[in-house]
C-alpha cells in the first residue's frame, strides 16, 4: 500500500490526489497503533476497582468516580516519585555542568592524545553496566552512600559524564574560535573565556543535555534496583515494577501507576519536543 502510494510521481507542490490521501491514511492508522498502549494505560487507570476486568480491557471507563486507579497508585507511588525527583534534579544539573566544562576543553583545548582520552571516556556510555555493578556496590558501601539517593546521584553523575561531554563537545566545536580570540586579546584566560564567552552561548546545549539526562536518569531501572535494596528509598521505576508484580493489586492501580511514572518525562517531551529531538541527534555520536 505504501509503495503503491509512493510510486506516484510527485512534484514539490503536489496536487492532492489519492496517493496523498493514502499516505495520510497510513500515517493515521500508524498513529492509532502507536497510541493504543497509551489508551490502555489511561482508560484502565481511570476505572474503579469494580469495573476493571480482563474482559473489559479495551472499553473506556463506564463512569468516572473518585475511586479510580489513580487514587490508589498515587498513594502507593508518591514517596517513590519524590525519591526519583530528589535523584534526577541534582544528578541532571551536576552532570550537565561537568559535561559543559569537559566538552569545552575537548572541543577548544585539544592536547596530544585528547581525542584518544575522549574516545576512552565515551566507551563508558556504551558498556553494559552489569560489568561494573559488583565493584560499584562495594565502593558505594565503603563511601557510605549505598542504598541512598545521594549514592544514586553519584552513580548517575559519573556514568553521565561520557554522554554530556560528547554533546557539549559537539556543540562547542560548532562555536567559531574567533569569538574566543576576541576575549583572549582582552586578557581572558581559559576559565574566564569559558564563563564569559562560551557559557552564555551554551543555553541551547544545556536545555538539550538537561532533557537528555533527565529522561535517562528518571527512566533508569538497573542502577535503582541494584544500588537501593530498600523499597521505601527506591525510585519510581522500581516501585512500579514491584507494584505490577504484586498479584493482590488491581490492574487499574498498575495502569494508573504506569501513567504516573511516565508523566514527568511525557510532560517534558510534550513541552520541549524540539529540544528532545535535538538531543537524540546529538546523542547518536555522529549526529
Amino acid at each position: 500500500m505504501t509503495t503503491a502510494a509512493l510510486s506516484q510521481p510527485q512534484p514539490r507542490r503536489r496536487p492532492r490526489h489519492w496517493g496523498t490521501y493514502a499516505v495520510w491514511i497510513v500515517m493515521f492508522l500508524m498513529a492509532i497503533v502507536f497510541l493504543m498502549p497509551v489508551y490502555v494505560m489511561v482508560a484502565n487507570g481511570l476505572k474503579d476497582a469494580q469495573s476493571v476486568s480482563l474482559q473489559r480491557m479495551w472499553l473506556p471507563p463506564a463512569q468516572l468516580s473518585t475511586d479510580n486507579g489513580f487514587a490508589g497508585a498515587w498513594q502507593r507511588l508518591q514517596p517513590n516519585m519524590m525519591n526519583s525527583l530528589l535523584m534526577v534534579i541534582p544528578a541532571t544539573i551536576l552532570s550537565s555542568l561537568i559535561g559543559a566544562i569537559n566538552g569545552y576543553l575537548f572541543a577548544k583545548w585539544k592536547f596530544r592524545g585528547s581525542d584518544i582520552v575522549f574516545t576512552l571516556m565515551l566507551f563508558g556510555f556504551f558498556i553494559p553496566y552489569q560489568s561494573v555493578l559488583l565493584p560499584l556496590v562495594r565502593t558505594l558501601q565503603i563511601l557510605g552512600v549505598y542504598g541512598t539517593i545521594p549514592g544514586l546521584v553519584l552513580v548517575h553523575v559519573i556514568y553521565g559524564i561520557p554522554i554530556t561531554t560528547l554533546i557539549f563537545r559537539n556543540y562547542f566545536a560548532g562555536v567559531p574560535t574567533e569569538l574566543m580570540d576576541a576575549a583572549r586579546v582582552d586578557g581572558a584566560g581559559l576559565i574566564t573565556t569559558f564563563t564569559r564567552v562560551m557559557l552564555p552561548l551554551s543555553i541551547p546545549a544545556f536545555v538539550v543535555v538537561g532533557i537528555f539526562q533527565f529522561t535517562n536518569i528518571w527512566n533508569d531501572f538497573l542502577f535503582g534496583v541494584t544500588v537501593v535494596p530498600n523499597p521505601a528509598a527506591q525510585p519510581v521505576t522500581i516501585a512500579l515494577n514491584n507494584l505490577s508484580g504484586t498479584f493482590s493489586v488491581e490492574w487499574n492501580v498498575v495502569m494508573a501507576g504506569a501513567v504516573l511514572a511516565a508523566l514527568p518525562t511525557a510532560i517534558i517531551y510534550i513541552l520541549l519536543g524540539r529540544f528532545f529531538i535535538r538531543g537524540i541527534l546529538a546523542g547518536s555520536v555522529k549526529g
Partner: protein
Amino acid sequence: MTATTDSAALRARPLDRRRWHLSEQAQTILLLLPSILALAVFIYVFISFTFWVSLSNWRTLKIDLTLREPLFATYAEMFAMARWQADLRNTFVFTIFFIAFAVTLGLTLAILLDRHLAGHNVFRNIFLFPYALSFVVTGVVWRWIFNPETGLNLLFEVLGINYLLTQAGMAPLKPGWITDPTVVAEVNGILAAVLPGVDAWQVKWGIPLAMIPVAIAATWQLSGFVMALYVGGMATISDEVREAARIDGASEFQVYRKVIIPMLRPVTISVVVILLHVSLKIFDLVYTMAGVGPGFATDVPAIFVFEQMFKATRYNLGSAAAIIMLVLVALVIVPYLASTLREDS
C-alpha cells in the same frame, strides 16, 4: 612578566597581568583530571575487578578472590548451562527481530513524514513519544496487552476474527504470546552436520516464540527513535537531489530506493550500531514484561547476571556473564568508535 620567551604563552595571553600561571595545557588537563580519574576507576578498574571475580572462587556471601583452577573454569561451567545457552539464543533471535522491525518501521515512518503533508509534525511527535517513556512503563503495559487471557487475544475475539476462523473450519487465533514455551525452526540437526560439539547442546536452537512479543514492544518504544535519526538525515539531503532524480525519470519509489536510502548509509550504520548495543544489553523491558519465561524462553544475559549476582550470590558466575556481555557490546562499539576517531583526526 610580559617578556616571557614561551611562545605559546605569548600567543595565548599577551596582556596577562598575573605574575605566575600554569600553562593553559596544564590547566586543561588539571580541569579534566577529576572526570578522567573518576571514569578510569568507575569503568576500567571496575571492569578489571569484575573480570578478576569471574576467574575467582567467589560464589558465597563471603568474599573469596583466590583464582579458580583451571583458569576460566567458571566460563566453561556457564557455557555448559542450559539456561546460558538459551540466553545466547534468545539475545540472538531478539536482536534480529528487533532490528529488522525497528529499522523497517522507522525508515517507513521517516519516508511517510518526508512528504510534509498537513499535520506531519503531530504524527512525528506521536511516533517518537514512546521513546520518552521508561522501558519499565513499556514492559508493564505490553505485558497486559500480550496477556493470553485478554489484550490482543480479546481483541481477536471481539472483532470477530476468531468467529470467522472457526466458521471456516480453522482453529481460533489464541497465541500464548509471552507464555508460549515453543521453539520453532529448530536448527540443531543442521548445525550438527557442520559444527562439532552441537550434540552436547542442551537447548533447541531456533526461534522461541515468546521472544517475538518482546521484540514488538521494543519496536514500539524505539522505532520513533530510528525515525528521528532518518528524518535528521533526510533533512540534510537537498531538494535538488530529488528533483534531479525525478527529471531523470525516477518514480517516487525509485527516488528513495536508488538515491535517498543509499545516501543515508551513515545514518543506517549509526542506527544499527545503537540498536545492536541496546538489544545486547536489554534488561528492564524483558524483566518487567516477561521475566525469564517458561523454560527460559525469554531469559536474556542481563537477567542472568542480575539473578546470579544479586539473588543467588554466585558472584563469579554473574561476573563471567557480565564480561561476555561486555565483549559482545565491545565487538560492535569499538570499531564504531575507532572509525569516528579516525574521521575526527
